């Protein structure tokens, strides 16, 4: 029997349809149907200025907008031959890690609610708001930041930001202990998570699975270490790895990643305190589109020499490894923009890690994947 779990289903976390064929209670086959949230972001980008694509990036993944901005902007800068200042690199690192904590807290809140644990949900959402407050203080927005720019970031951090951020980090460090107590000490948690959704290391690699799902299979791979970008080669942190490749292992990896993110945030704050400087490259061409204000008419009237090039970037997004490919054939708009979403691949592998388990196991397993449909459908 085929059953549709979605497009409106408490398990889906977004708009998609998981079609499963069941034999009694056992899952035999799965066929995810995507596209309910397809907005054609790659197509719209072709008609936009380079900096205007950043607006779309915030909407690509609405819980990890900053990471997607960063991903796109590295590829765009490579295609446009721009170099951001050092301070901007550290601010991007800081923003990425704050985003990682916010995204993982969102995952934590949604995931434990799937298991029927209501209290951790409220705690997770409460603490995520503290991160969003920090974002609001330096970008002006809580979810759609539009903060990165080709050649740097839009504005510097406000006065007193680093102290405020340190207080939040101290608060979070103490909360992580409570989260673990709420989940790992709970019998319900272990009964619903242990040994479910196992995806072996070999299958992970064959199916292109990345991020916490790959690291939960015992493979120590993190682009921040293996292929450092921004300022990641100048901060110290450990790669979170777990064994077991099941739902509990993914929980442990994400929890450890949050602790490591706090560690990175503290180091970048110390650096930013000591090294004032510009955050946006000088002499940026106006046709990039709105470093500060919309492009004026004079931007179109002058003849100019457009650079050409291709840009490829890859960042460790909270959900896994995301890639961007930007083709610049000379002109004010990118010729083609292509994004690779980690969740897209992790859902495609569902046909490997779902069959054999029971229908009631689907919410914890899919919850442990951390689905964000916005970036799957783009």
């Amino acid at each position, binding site marked *: 029997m085929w059953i549709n779990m979605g497009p409106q289903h408490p398990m889906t976390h977004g708009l998609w349809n998981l079609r499963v064929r069941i034999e009694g209670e056992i899952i035999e086959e799965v066929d995810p149907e995507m596209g309910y949230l397809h907005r054609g972001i790659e197509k719209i980008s072709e*008609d936009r200025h380079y900096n205007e694509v950043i607006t779309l990036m915030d909407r690509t993944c609405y819980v990890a907008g900053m990471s997607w901005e960063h991903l796109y902007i590295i590829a765009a800068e*490579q295609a446009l031959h721009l170099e951001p200042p050092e301070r901007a690199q550290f601010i991007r690192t800081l923003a990425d890690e704050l985003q990682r904590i916010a995204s993982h807290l969102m995952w934590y809140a949604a995931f434990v609610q799937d298991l029927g644990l209501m209290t951790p949900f409220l705690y997770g959402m409460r603490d995520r708001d503290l991160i969003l407050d920090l974002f609001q203080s330096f970008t002006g927005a809580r979810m759609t930041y539009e903060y990165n720019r080709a050649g740097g970031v839009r504005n510097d951090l406000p006065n007193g930001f680093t102290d405020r951020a340190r207080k939040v980090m101290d608060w979070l460090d103490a909360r992580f202990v409570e989260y673990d107590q709420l989940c790992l000490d709970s019998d319900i948690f272990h009964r619903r998570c242990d040994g479910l959704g196992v995806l072996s290391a070999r299958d992970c690699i064959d199916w292109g699975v*990345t991020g916490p799902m790959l690291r939960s299979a015992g493979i120590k791979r993190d682009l921040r270490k293996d292929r450092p970008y921004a300022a990641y080669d100048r901060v110290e942190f450990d790669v979170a790895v777990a064994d077991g490749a099941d739902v509990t292992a993914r929980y442990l990896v994400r929890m450890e990643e949050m602790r490591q993110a706090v560690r990175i945030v503290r180091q970048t704050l110390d650096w930013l305190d000591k090294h004032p400087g510009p955050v946006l490259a000088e002499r940026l061409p106006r046709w990039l589109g709105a470093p500060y204000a919309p492009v004026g008419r004079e931007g179109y009237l002058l003849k100019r020499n457009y650079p050409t090039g291709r840009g*490829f970037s*890859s960042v460790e997004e909270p959900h896994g*490894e995301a890639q961007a*490919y930007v083709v610049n054939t000379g002109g004010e708009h990118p010729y*083609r923009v292509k994004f690779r979403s980690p969740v897209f691949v992790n859902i495609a592998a569902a046909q490997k890690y779902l069959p054999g388990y029971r229908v009631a196991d689907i919410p914890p397993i899919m919850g442990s994947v951390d689905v964000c449909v916005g970036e799957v459908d783009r």
Partner: protein
Amino acid sequence: MRPELLRERLGPLLGPRLLAVEPFDGTAGRVRFAREGALDLFRAVRDDLGYRHLAMVGAVDWVDHREVFYVAWSDQERDYVFLSTDLPANDAHVESATPVWPAANWHEREAFEMVDVRFDHHPDLRHLLTPEEYAFHPLLRSFKLHEPEELEVKTRNV
């Protein structure tokens, strides 16, 4: 792995089907190949060079031809390799990479519906993000935004 080394390793295996290896920042190099050598190249890149992890497959419409590109990652080299092939626009098909990298499945489905590239011997070449009845290929340059199209969507019987 540098572009020269890539050429040295892949050249004897592919012969004239290897067209060029260009430097490409952020990757080990951009390998351009003729589509006849697709599967041989994928196997060589995966098994001989160790790029076991396929990151993405995509396609670019260049109006007169279409470019299909593959990006793969190697844990040993800690680097990406970028493979690309040009297909004529009126006959855009290439061998599917799914026998070598199962991860190519959904990426190829997306390239098929968006840029109208056919992948031969793909196990399940259906539309992924658009409805099955959707007769347009949105990421072709000939598909213009701001021109509404008539579309009838049927729901699938389950």
